[in-house]
């Protein structure tokens, strides 16, 4: 392909850095909109069934571990803060601090996944995985409770998948920063990952009260 003269670090299709940065930010937000709708559809499903099976969902939610959920919420909120700090230092061109806070964020994200893993394991032990081995007392609520846990796993599973993707992306980013790769000298890549990460946090902000804190 013919390489034309273009300022460093500005892709060929863009006029200048400013246009490029703006494009990336707008592009990321547009992507986040698709994510909102993606999760939104499951939330809508959840709302419809919760309205229809209020009592049963309440019974079922008692099996969730509120303390663990609470800890995980704190973990995720903190990781959002550290991610914001990462971006802050990226903007101020301070790679060391940037790397530090990025690593903390990553560690928190993994902590979240570990806690989630424990929760899933408990559910498995208690026979709360929907399917042939699902057990629930009182038996009257068996079916709606199974529905609740179907949704619980669908929603938290999708969310956990997003966390996992976040961790992987952050890992790549950390390596790039460590080796001072040219593609991360700008703060935009970090900002984009940050936007994604905060979005994942927002999803959890809604998941926690909806699943764990159903009022009587």
């Amino acid at each position, binding site marked *: 392909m013919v390489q034309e003269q273009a300022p*460093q670090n500005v892709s060929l299709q863009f006029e200048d850095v400013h246009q490029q940065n703006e494009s990336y930010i707008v592009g990321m937000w547009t992507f986040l909109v698709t994510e909102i709708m993606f999760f939104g559809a499951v939330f809508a499903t959840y709302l419809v069934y919760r309205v229809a099976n209020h009592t049963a969902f309440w019974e079922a939610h008692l099996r969730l571990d509120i303390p663990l959920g609470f800890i995980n919420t704190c973990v995720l909120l903190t990781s*959002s803060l550290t991610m914001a*700090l990462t971006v802050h230092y990226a903007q101020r061109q301070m790679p060391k601090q940037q790397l530090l806070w990025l690593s903390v964020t990553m560690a928190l994200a993994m902590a979240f996944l570990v806690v989630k893993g424990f929760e899933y394991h408990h559910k498995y032990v208690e026979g709360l995985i929907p399917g042939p081995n699902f057990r629930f007392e009182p038996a009257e609520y068996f079916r709606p409770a199974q529905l609740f846990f179907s949704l619980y796993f669908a929603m938290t599973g999708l969310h956990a998948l997003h966390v996992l993707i976040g961790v992987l992306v952050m890992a790549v980013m950390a390596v790039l920063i460590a080796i001072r790769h040219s593609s991360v000298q700008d703060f935009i890549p970090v900002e984009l990952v940050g936007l994604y990460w905060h979005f994942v946090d927002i999803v959890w902000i809604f998941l926690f009260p909806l699943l764990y804190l159903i009022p009587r």
Partner: protein
Amino acid sequence: MALANGHDSHTHIVPIRVYLLVYAALLVLLVLTVGAAYLPGRHTLLNNVIALTIAIAKAVLVVLYFMHVRYSTRLTWLWASAGFFWLLIMFILTLGDYFTRHWVPAIGWE
């Protein structure tokens, strides 16, 4: 590469103090939701409203400060709100069906 003049004139660097304040607010709100869920008595509707209001407040804080929408262009505002707005449409029209299932057609429509 270092942008020519340190940083692009269009990027706003949010001071760390603001981040910390927002973080503190988020934690306070979190404690409030958990607390509200343990309120004695049966306040189904009220509780739901409280929980959701707090969740929305938290999300707004994150969007405005952590995600810098407060300092962004109108376009970013537009997209950030469009997503949530469309979600609302989906909820309202879908739930609208479920909530009106048992209504009987009004007199005069027969």
